[in-house]
C-alpha cells in the first residue's frame, strides 16, 4: 500500500514539475497586449476552405486577410486588405483587384494573384468537397465547375457534339434531385437489382456516375434512361467521352472567371451584377491560401492535409499561428511579414474553446478573459446590474423563426399557418424567455444597410382566431395533432412551453413537444420530418440574399417543402438588376411574396449578448461581430 502511495505521489510530483506554468493574470496579458477571448468550442479545422462556422471565422480572421477588410466603425466602408484597390465595371460584373505590392505570407513569400486563382480553383474543385463552395458561385462558370455539370464541357462545347446540342440537351446529365440518394449510400452498384440500377443512374445522372458504372452502362445501355429517338451510335460516343474523361479536372475547360492578369492583378468575372462583392471577399471562403505550402503537403483537391498543422500553417493576415493545443487553446502572434504591421496593436490573441457558457462567464468575472463568446440568458440581467460597463447587447445579423412543414396535411392549409403565426407573441418570448433585447421580427430578413425589413406579421390574437376559424379544426381544435420539434439545448424546453401556452390560449390547440439532441434534430429537420420546428439563420454577408436564397426549391436549407416559382422569378430578376436600390426593392417584393404564404413564422432578430473588459479598446458593435483585430488595442 505504502509503495502504491509512493508511486502515485511520485508520478504526481513529476507531472507537477514538467507541467509548471506561471499563472498570468488578465492584467499581465493586458500589459503584454495579448487579447484573451472565449471562443465557445474547438474549431472544426483551420482551413478556410473546409470550415463553416462563426467560431472558426473568429480565428481565421486573425490569421488570414480578405481582399477587403471591415472598417472598425462604419460597416459600409471597405478597408484595404490584401488588395489596395478594387474597381468594378459599369454593371458590377467584372472586378479588378490590385493586390498589395508588398503583401507577404507569414513565411516571407509574396502573396500573388496566382495564390488567389489557386485558392478559388481549390475550393471549387468538385472532389475537394468544400461545404461552402456555393459562396463563390457568383463567379462566372464556378457553379458548373463546382457541381460537376460536365456536359457543358464534354457535350455542349465539345466539337464532336456541339452541332447536335439541341437534340442532346435533354439527356439526364445532372441527375434527378427528387430521388433520395441516401438510399444508395453504402451499397455497390453491381449488387443492386436491375430496377434499382436504373433508379440509381437516373438519380445521379451521367455527370455523377463513376467509371465502373459508365462501363456497365456501355455493356447494357438499358441501365440508363436515354432520351427517346437517340441512336445507339450517339449513346456509345457520349459514353466513350464520359469514360475517357472520368476523373479528369475540367478547370482549364471551365473558364471560371478568375484570372491573374499579372502577379498583383486579379480579375474576377461574375455571372450577374454583384455590387456587394467587397463584402463577400471578407468571408473566409474568399480568402487565399498559400499555394506553395498547400501543395507541399498534398494535392490541390485533397482536403485534411497537414498544411494546417500548427508547425506548417502560413497565413497573410495581421497574426500568425503560434500554438494550437487541442481543446485547450489556440494562440496567434503578430505577423512580422504583414504589410500593415505598424497598424496592428496587439501582440497576440488567445482563443479558448470554452463550451460551457456559465464557466466562461465565471472566468470573465474572475478576471481571466477579455471577451466572452456569449452570455447565458439567465445571466444577462445580473450582468447588466453588476457589470454594466462590461455588458454588451448588440444587433446581430440573424433571425430566429419557426418552420412549418408545408407538406404535412394539416399545415398545407395556409390559414392554419397564419393562425399559428399570428398567435405567436414574440414580444413576450423575448421579454420572459430570451431576455437578450432581441427585436420582434416582422420578416425573415433583418433590416440591414439600405434594406428595410418587410412588415409581414405581428402578434394579433383576433386575426389568429379569424384564420383559425377558416380551418377544418375551427370547432374541434383538440383534434389537431401537430408536433413541435426542438433541441435539447439550454432554454429550448422553456421556449417550446411558451409556444404551447401561446397557441393553446389563443387557438385552443394542444401541440406535442418533441425534444431531440442536436444531430437527430438536424436530421429530422432536413428530412422534413416534423410539424413545426424551431430554427434560426445567421447571415454570411450583409445582403438580403443571404436570407432569401435558401428558400428556393430544392435548397438544402429550405427544409419546409415550400416553394414558389413567382418568388424565384423575383430573385432572378433582382440578381440581374444593376441599380442597387432597385435591386433591394425587388428583393423586398420577393420576400413579401414568400411571407404572404407564411411557410415560416419569423420570431425575432438576433442580438449578441456578451462581455467585454474595459481594457479592450476599439471593440465596436458590428452587425456580424467580425471586429477587425488589427485595430483592437489593450490599455490598462
Amino acid at each position, binding site marked *: *500500500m505504502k509503495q502504491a*502511495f509512493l508511486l*502515485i*505521489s511520485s*508520478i*504526481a510530483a513529476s*507531472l507537477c514539475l514538467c*507541467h*509548471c506554468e*506561471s*499563472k498570468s493574470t488578465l492584467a499581465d496579458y493586458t500589459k503584454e497586449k495579448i487579447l484573451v477571448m472565449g471562443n465557445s468550442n*474547438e474549431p*472544426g*479545422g483551420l*482551413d478556410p476552405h*473546409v470550415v*463553416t462556422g462563426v467560431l472558426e471565422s473568429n480565428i481565421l480572421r486573425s490569421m488570414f486577410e480578405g481582399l477587403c477588410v471591415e472598417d472598425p466603425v462604419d460597416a459600409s466602408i471597405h478597408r484595404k486588405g490584401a488588395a489596395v484597390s478594387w474597381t468594378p465595371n459599369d454593371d458590377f460584373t467584372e472586378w479588378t483587384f490590385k493586390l498589395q505590392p508588398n503583401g507577404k505570407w507569414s513565411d516571407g513569400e509574396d502573396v500573388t494573384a496566382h495564390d488567389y486563382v489557386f485558392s478559388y480553383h481549390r475550393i471549387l474543385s*468538385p*472532389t*475537394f*468537397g*468544400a*461545404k*461552402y*463552395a*456555393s459562396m463563390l458561385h457568383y463567379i462566372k462558370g464556378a457553379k458548373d465547375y463546382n*457541381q*460537376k455539370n460536365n456536359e457543358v464541357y464534354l457535350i455542349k462545347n465539345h466539337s464532336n457534339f456541339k452541332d447536335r446540342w439541341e437534340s442532346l440537351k435533354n439527356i439526364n446529365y445532372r441527375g434527378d*434531385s427528387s430521388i433520395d*440518394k441516401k438510399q444508395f*449510400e*453504402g451499397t*455497390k452498384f453491381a449488387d443492386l437489382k436491375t430496377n434499382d440500377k436504373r433508379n440509381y443512374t437516373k438519380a445521379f445522372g451521367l455527370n*455523377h456516375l463513376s467509371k465502373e458504372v459508365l462501363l456497365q452502362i456501355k455493356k447494357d445501355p438499358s441501365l440508363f434512361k436515354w432520351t427517346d429517338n437517340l441512336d445507339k451510335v450517339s449513346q456509345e460516343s457520349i459514353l466513350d467521352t464520359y469514360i475517357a474523361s472520368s476523373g479528369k479536372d475540367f478547370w482549364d475547360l471551365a473558364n471560371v472567371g478568375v484570372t491573374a492578369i499579372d502577379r498583383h492583378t486579379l480579375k474576377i468575372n461574375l455571372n450577374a451584377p454583384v455590387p456587394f462583392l467587397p463584402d463577400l471577399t471578407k468571408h473566409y471562403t474568399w480568402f487565399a491560401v498559400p499555394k506553395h505550402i498547400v501543395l507541399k503537403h498534398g494535392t490541390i483537391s485533397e*482536403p*485534411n492535409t497537414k498544411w*494546417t498543422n500548427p508547425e506548417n500553417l502560413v497565413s497573410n493576415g495581421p497574426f500568425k499561428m503560434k500554438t494550437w*493545443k*487541442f*481543446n*485547450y487553446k489556440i494562440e496567434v502572434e503578430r505577423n512580422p511579414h504583414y504589410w500593415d504591421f505598424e497598424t496592428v496593436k496587439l501582440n497576440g490573441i488567445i482563443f*479558448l474553446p*470554452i*463550451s*460551457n457558457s*456559465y*464557466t466562461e462567464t*465565471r*472566468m470573465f468575472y*474572475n478576471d*481571466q478573459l477579455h471577451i466572452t463568446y456569449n452570455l447565458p440568458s439567465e445571466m444577462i440581467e445580473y450582468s447588466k446590474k453588476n457589470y454594466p460597463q462590461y455588458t454588451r447587447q448588440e444587433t446581430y445579423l440573424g433571425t430566429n423563426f419557426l418552420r412549418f412543414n408545408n407538406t404535412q396535411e394539416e399545415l398545407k392549409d395556409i390559414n392554419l399557418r397564419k393562425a399559428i403565426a399570428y398567435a405567436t407573441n414574440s414580444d413576450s418570448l423575448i421579454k420572459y424567455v430570451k431576455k437578450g433585447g432581441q427585436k420582434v421580427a416582422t420578416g425573415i430578413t433583418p433590416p440591414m444597410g439600405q434594406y428595410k425589413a418587410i412588415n409581414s406579421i405581428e402578434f394579433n390574437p383576433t386575426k389568429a382566431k379569424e384564420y383559425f376559424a377558416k380551418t377544418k379544426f375551427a370547432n374541434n381544435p383538440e383534434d389537431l395533432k401537430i408536433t413541435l420539434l426542438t433541441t435539447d439545448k439550454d432554454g429550448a424546453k422553456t421556449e417550446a412551453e411558451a409556444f404551447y401556452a401561446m397557441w393553446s390560449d389563443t387557438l385552443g390547440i394542444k401541440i406535442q413537444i418533441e425534444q431531440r439532441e442536436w*444531430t*437527430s434534430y*438536424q*436530421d*429530422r429537420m*432536413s428530412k422534413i420530418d416534423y410539424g413545426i420546428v424551431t430554427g434560426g439563420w445567421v447571415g454570411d454577408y450583409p445582403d438580403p440574399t443571404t436570407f432569401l436564397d435558401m428558400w428556393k426549391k430544392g435548397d*438544402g*436549407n429550405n*427544409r419546409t417543402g415550400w416553394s414558389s416559382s413567382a418568388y424565384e422569378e423575383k430573385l432572378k430578376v433582382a440578381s440581374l438588376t444593376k441599380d442597387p436600390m432597385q435591386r433591394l426593392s425587388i428583393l423586398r417584393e420577393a420576400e413579401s411574396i414568400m411571407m404572404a404564404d407564411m411557410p415560416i413564422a419569423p420570431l425575432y432578430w438576433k442580438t449578441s449578448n456578451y462581455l467585454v473588459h474595459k481594457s479592450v479598446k476599439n471593440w465596436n458593435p458590428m452587425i456580424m461581430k467580425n471586429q477587425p483585430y488589427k485595430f483592437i488595442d489593450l490599455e490598462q
Partner: protein
Amino acid sequence: MLKTILDRLLQGIVVIICLLTLTFFLIRLVPGDPLTDEKAMPPQVRAENMKIFKLDKSQPVQYLYYWKTLLQGEMGISIKKRQPVSMIISQSFPVSVIIGITGMFIAVIIGIPAGIIAALKHNSLIDNGTMFLAMLGISIPTFVVGPILAKFVATQVPFLKVAGWGGPFDWILPAITLGLGTAAYLARITRAGMLDILSQDFIRTAKAKGADQKSIIIKHALKGGLVPAIAYIGPAFAMLITGSFVVETIFQVPGMGQHFVNATKERDYFLLQGMVLLFGVLIVMVNLAADILLTYLNPRLRS
C-alpha cells in the same frame, strides 16, 4: 500467476474486439451522421465527403477498412474536427490521467482513513457523522459541487482559478470535484470491509494475545479489510479518467471526457471508436492490475 494474467489479457482482447464491433454498428444506427450539419450540404458535396471518409462504402466494408487502419497503427480522422484521432487522444489523455490520478489520490486519502475510523468507532457519533457525509458526497452530483467550489472557494483563494488549465494549482478543484464522490464510496466500502474483518476470530485472538490496537489494525485487519476497497478502486480509477465530462466543462479542462460525449452527440464515428478503444483498453488493464493486487492481498485467490 503468469497463466492467469495471460488468460485475462486474452479475455480482454476479446472484450475489446466485441466492444469496438458493437460501437461501430450501433453508432451507425443512430439517426443522422457525421455530415449532418446546421447548414445543409449540397448533395454532390455530401457525396464527395462521404467518399473522402469512405462512408459511401457498405458498412461491412467500412468495418474492414476500420480494422485495416487500426492494424496500421492509426485511428482515422475526426470528421468534425478534421484532426487525426491519435493526435486528439495524445493531447487529451495526459490531462485526463493527471486529473484522474489527482482525483483518485484525493479519494484515497479522504475515503480510506474515513472508512477505517468509522469502522473503529462503530456506532459512535464519528461513525454516523462520517457516513452521513459520505452519503452526502455520493448524492450531490459533480455539476453542483463544481460550480459551488468555483464560486465560493476559487474566488477566495488567491492561487486558485474558477476555471482554466495551466499549472498544478489548476488541478486542485477539478480533482476535488471528481474525487469527492469516489471518496464517499470508498469510505463506505472500507468501513464495511473493516467491520467484517474486525469481527473475525483471528482479530479476537490477536487481541486476546495482548497485541496492541495499532499493530492489530495495521498488520492484521487492514490487509483483509481493504480488499473490497481495492476491488472498487480499479474500475473507479478508469471511471475517473474517462468519465469526467461534467468536471471538464465546468473547469475548462482539456481532457478526454468531452470528446467521448461530443463524438457521440456529433456522430464523429472515428473519434468515438478511438475513445471506446482507449477506454476499453484502460478498463481491461486497470481491472487486471486490481486483480493482481487482490491476489497479493488475498492468498485464497492465488490457487
